[in-house]
């Protein structure tokens, strides 16, 4: 299309053509897509749900997979799994898209060329034959962190067959310092397992317990419960955070201390608390009040150190917990099969040690996440990469085999607390040549078994033959293996514990490396849902930016979107800058996970790759870094610039918002008999994790529009999360459609395409919509989204589509329906059973995903329903209530932090 407006003749010609098309359309027309009438080969094609488990950083989170016609279409949390409790995180929600990703690797390749899968089996057999006589010398096995009992068993068998072989786990985000810190404090590596349900005072030192991670869902749930109890009691638990890079936990903290380095502060706290055996004391102006708050909470206090903190901080945190006698902090054996260093430096050492002739990289992408290691990985006589994509590592290795998605194959895993779960296939395998990690190990071992047989063998060994089948079936059905959580350890602080000497204060501007909230180290860069989901604290999508303190930006003469040359230890790259008030002065945050070189169509070159500057020896902080303006501008794609209207109120404990009396209205009143649906969103519980937004996208077939369209403000998320930042607090406000009883959108629609139903839902009639967008213009909450293009047909991901929700054609408005299809399903089921719909029977997708249960949904006509009770609370208020649109979605206001010790 040219940009010149078409002349009159052109318009008439087009009009005539479209009339002709319309006339032709009166015939039977093309077949409706996405609605095949298939008789299944075997069994019914009905909706089915499977319990399985997904890994993040090697640790499992239980999920229930909803399946239609053999395809996994939506994941929900498994309430019985300790790392899910029924909730999901953004990664679990996005897994169905990764599964159906058309860019997945599909073929076994040698030297980049497709080969028959049997060729790889033959190659592995010859590797075995070659290595057996020399005891496996020269074999290096690189995997992700392994907690899976079956994989661990197979790797042990490999190491037994090949005693001279070596095995290295690799995770660029691994908590190496944590294990070393525990060893310094207790003399043994232990994993920390805080129980926030008991906590009265939490101090996070660069830790992000509420942020992405394998324990996020559990910690967030416990924290929100502790807070709910505190609200009822009038004594809120205190969350304090000292950190250099802004995190979700920091945003949610009652007191956030932004500081360049946490170590001096930690030493000052330890000094103030009189931690025994502390050689090097320290002082910090903020330490005294924080120490006081910790002391007041006593054994209900806990100090957490994040993986990015130096070993000294880790050891100090353990010592402080021991001194406080914290019962909140529990310790268990690390759930990994072989706890140890897993970071880039450990992998670099493993690659350098000995002559590696046979390199097997299974399920990880070290060449992508640690570019510094590319040189040492290339040119091995035999190298195999097993991965879901033909990525950076695949390009370096001779052989490549497609990795089966977690939802496609058998396996097992352990959660952060050690609870084991069996992973079962929950979908039709989509890549016939794909194989699991266990399958490759079995081939290396010369075993004939694959998949399920390997997992069964592991559990048969631990359960015995007798009564195995019922136990196996029970474990598959429940999604957890009962009674497998790690027993608590009670490690004592070593008498001669030593955190090590204080680190010399780094000079100049410090570069802090942080995982991207949605892409982590780049492993999720090929997932378009995660790329397009606005990052919680920057609201950026499809790229990243160097986060700079506003003061530093002003000193360097930088504004948002300026391109800078970032130089660190002789390496440099170009990146846009984004001044962020939460970033402390003196350091900049370089988010990892961007700028992938071989990330497919979706993931390649989105933002810059901070890993290029990352030194394996100091992976989390390095300096001095210099930022120099290049004079160019680099677009930062963000869905929110500036602060949204109507900042949420913050109430003092016990304070309540007076209910607003409905004003006079020109429109006739309407009574809702039967059910009237409504929602309450608790802003005191919301942690801004984005799970609701992506759950909504997965449930409602919301399209991905791509970076250019997001930059134009045309993102399609039905539920957005507004970020309100003030001097002393950050509030995340999820904004779905408010389902106003006096809906401003309805009265302006010229074709009556948006109407109310008898239960108070404000709904779209898509076939009526002619795309004037007047409704969107008149919506004060700006929750209506317009299909500028025919996304539904162009996406191609039909197998992933939720068949309960129609896809919207080009040129119509769409928006949140309160998951009307779930309401209808529950209503029909209730009617078939001859009973009314129960409270809690209808759960919207966002509500189901929420780790803190901040979203309540139900019948507002029923005074006993959970949502009615929530709306009765004094904290209940309507967004833009002065407009008197009488929204069905209301919010429960945030409670101001109590005394965090800042007053002395």
């Amino acid at each position, binding site marked *: 299309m040219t940009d010149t407006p078409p002349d009159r003749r052109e318009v008439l010609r087009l009009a005539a053509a479209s009339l002709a098309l319309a006339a032709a359309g009166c015939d039977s027309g093309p077949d409706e897509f996405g609605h095949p009438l298939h008789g299944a080969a075997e069994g019914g094609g009905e909706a089915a749900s499977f319990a399985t488990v997904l890994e993040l950083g090697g640790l499992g989170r239980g999920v229930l997979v909803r399946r239609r016609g053999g395809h996994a279409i939506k994941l929900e949390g498994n309430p019985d799994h300790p790392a899910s409790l029924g909730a999901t995180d953004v990664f679990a929600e996005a897994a169905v898209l990764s599964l159906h990703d058309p860019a997945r690797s599909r073929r076994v390749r040698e030297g980049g060329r497709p080969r028959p899968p049997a060729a790889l089996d033959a190659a592995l057999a010859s590797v075995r034959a070659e290595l057996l006589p020399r005891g496996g010398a020269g074999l290096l096995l690189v995997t992700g962190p392994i907690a899976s009992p079956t994989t661990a068993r197979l790797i042990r068998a490999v190491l037994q067959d090949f005693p001279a072989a070596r095995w290295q786990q690799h995770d660029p985000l691994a908590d190496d310092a944590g294990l070393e810190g525990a060893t310094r404090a207790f003399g043994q590596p232990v994993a920390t397992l805080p129980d926030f349900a008991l906590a009265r005072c939490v101090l996070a030192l660069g830790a992000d317990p509420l942020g992405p991670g394998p324990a996020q869902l559990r910690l967030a749930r416990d924290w929100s419960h502790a807070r709910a109890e505190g609200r009822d009691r009038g004594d809120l638990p205190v969350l304090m955070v000292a950190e250099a890079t802004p995190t979700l936990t920091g945003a949610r903290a009652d007191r956030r201390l932004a500081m360049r380095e946490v170590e001096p502060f930690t030493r000052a706290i330890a000094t103030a608390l009189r931690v025994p055996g502390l050689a090097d004391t320290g002082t910090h102006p903020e330490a005294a009040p924080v120490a006081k708050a910790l002391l007041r909470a006593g054994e209900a206090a806990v100090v957490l150190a994040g993986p990015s903190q130096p070993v000294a901080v880790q050891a100090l945190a353990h010592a402080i917990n021991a001194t406080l006698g914290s019962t909140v902090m529990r310790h268990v054996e690390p759930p990994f099969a072989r706890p140890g260093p897993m970071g880039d430096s450990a992998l670099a050492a493993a690659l350098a040690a000995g002559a590696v002739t046979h390199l097997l990289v299974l399920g990880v992408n070290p060449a992508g996440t640690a570019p510094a290691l590319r040189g040492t990985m290339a040119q091995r006589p035999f190298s195999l990469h097993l991965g879901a994509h033909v990525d950076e590592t695949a390009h370096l290795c001779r052989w490549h085999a497609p990795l089966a998605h977690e939802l496609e194959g058998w396996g097992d895993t352990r959660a952060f607390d050690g609870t084991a779960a069996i992973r079962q296939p929950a979908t039709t395998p989509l890549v016939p040549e794909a194989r699991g990690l266990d399958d490759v190990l079995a081939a290396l071992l010369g075993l004939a078994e694959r998949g399920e047989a390997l997992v069964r063998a592991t559990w048969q060994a631990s359960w015995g033959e007798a009564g195995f089948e019922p136990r196996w079936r029970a474990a598959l059905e429940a999604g957890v293996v009962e009674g497998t959580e790690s027993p608590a350890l009670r490690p004592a602080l070593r008498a001669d514990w030593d955190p090590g000497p204080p680190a010399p204060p780094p000079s100049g501007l410090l570069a802090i490396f942080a995982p991207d909230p949605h892409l982590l180290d780049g492993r999720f860069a090929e997932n378009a849902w995660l790329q397009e989901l606005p990052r919680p604290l920057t609201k950026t999508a499809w790229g990243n930016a160097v986060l700079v303190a506003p003061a530093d930006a002003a000193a360097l003469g930088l504004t948002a979107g300026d391109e800078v040359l970032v130089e660190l230890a002789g390496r440099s790259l170009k990146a846009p800058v984004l001044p962020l008030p939460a970033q402390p002065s003196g350091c900049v945050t370089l988010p990892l996970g961007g700028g992938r070189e071989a990330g497919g169509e979706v993931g390649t070159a989105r933002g810059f790759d901070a890993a290029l500057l990352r030194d394996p020896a100091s992976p989390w902080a390095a300096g001095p870094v210099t930022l120099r303006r290049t004079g160019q501008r680099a677009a930062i794609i963000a869905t929110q610039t500036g602060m949204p209207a109507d900042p949420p109120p913050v109430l003092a404990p016990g304070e309540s918002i007076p209910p607003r009396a409905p004003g006079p209205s020109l429109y006739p009143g309407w009574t809702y008999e039967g059910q009237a649906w409504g929602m309450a969103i608790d802003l005191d519980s919301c942690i801004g994790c984005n799970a609701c937004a992506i759950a909504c996208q997965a449930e409602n077939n919301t399209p991905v529009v791509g970076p250019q369209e997001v930059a134009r403000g045309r993102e399609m998320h039905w539920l957005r999360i507004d970020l309100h930042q003030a001097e002393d607090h950050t509030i995340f406000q999820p904004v779905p459609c408010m389902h106003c009883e006096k809906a401003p959108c309805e009265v302006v629609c010229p074709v009556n395409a948006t109407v109310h139903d008898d239960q108070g839902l404000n709904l779209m009639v898509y*076939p009526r919509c002619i795309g004037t967008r007047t409704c969107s213009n008149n919506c004060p909450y700006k929750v209506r989204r317009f299909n500028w293009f025919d996304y539904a047909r162009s996406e191609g991901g039909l197998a992933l589509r939720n068949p309960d929700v129609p896809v919207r054609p080009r040129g119509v408005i769409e928006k949140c329906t309160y998951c009307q299809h779930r309401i209808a399903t529950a209503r*029909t089921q209730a009617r078939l*059973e001859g009973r009314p719909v129960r409270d809690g029977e209808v759960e919207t997708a966002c509500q189901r995903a929420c780790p803190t249960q901040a979203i309540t949904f139900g019948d507002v006509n029923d005074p006993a329903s959970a949502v009615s009770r929530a709306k009765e609370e004094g904290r209940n208020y309507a967004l833009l209530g002065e407009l008197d649109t009488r929204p069905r979605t209301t919010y429960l206001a945030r409670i101001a932090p109590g005394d965090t010790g800042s007053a002395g």
Partner: protein
Amino acid sequence: MPQHFTPRADGRLRLALLLGLAALIGAALLAFVMVRSDHAWAVGRPAPQPIPFSHALHAGGLGLDCRYCHAGVERAAEAGMPSASLCLGCHGDVWAGATALAPLRDSLALGAPIPWSSVHRLPDHTRFHHGAHIAAGAACETCHGRVWEMPQTIKVRPMSMGWCLDCHREPEPRLRPVEAVFDRDWQGRPPPANPHAGGAVSPLTQCSTCHR
């Protein structure tokens, strides 16, 4: 200045305008009738099927119950299509080697679905729950006609929104007692009251009852 038009030109123009108007109205009327015609809704037109399946033979001649193959009809939204293994339960013995049944054997061997063509196509923006209709006393025949007499399955009702609403506005005369839903020779009279049992029944003419 000479006359450009003859004295009769005005009359011709009026006639032409009148005829044009009549043609427009006629075209509109024709379109109005056409889109409501059975032809436009493919009533009576069989769809091409991968296997020449005859309901007249199976349901009529052999007397199989509808639910033998469409097992989900009483409880699920979709009545359900029989799986290849169900078909082959009988056809493993009867007509076992027939080439017409090759798609069944292929389906079972490949684990792939049988690509039947839809005769009663449900539009994407509509939801329909078979179980709910059965429970309310809507018989198979009420919507699908006498399928057991059809050698080739055809639609006998337009299944347009207007047709749905005809019944939703006044369902009682078209309903049967629930126990007579699968009775092919039922001759009784509709039950007097709406048999919707329990729960709050959403008015059947609400958009959101059927549309999503």
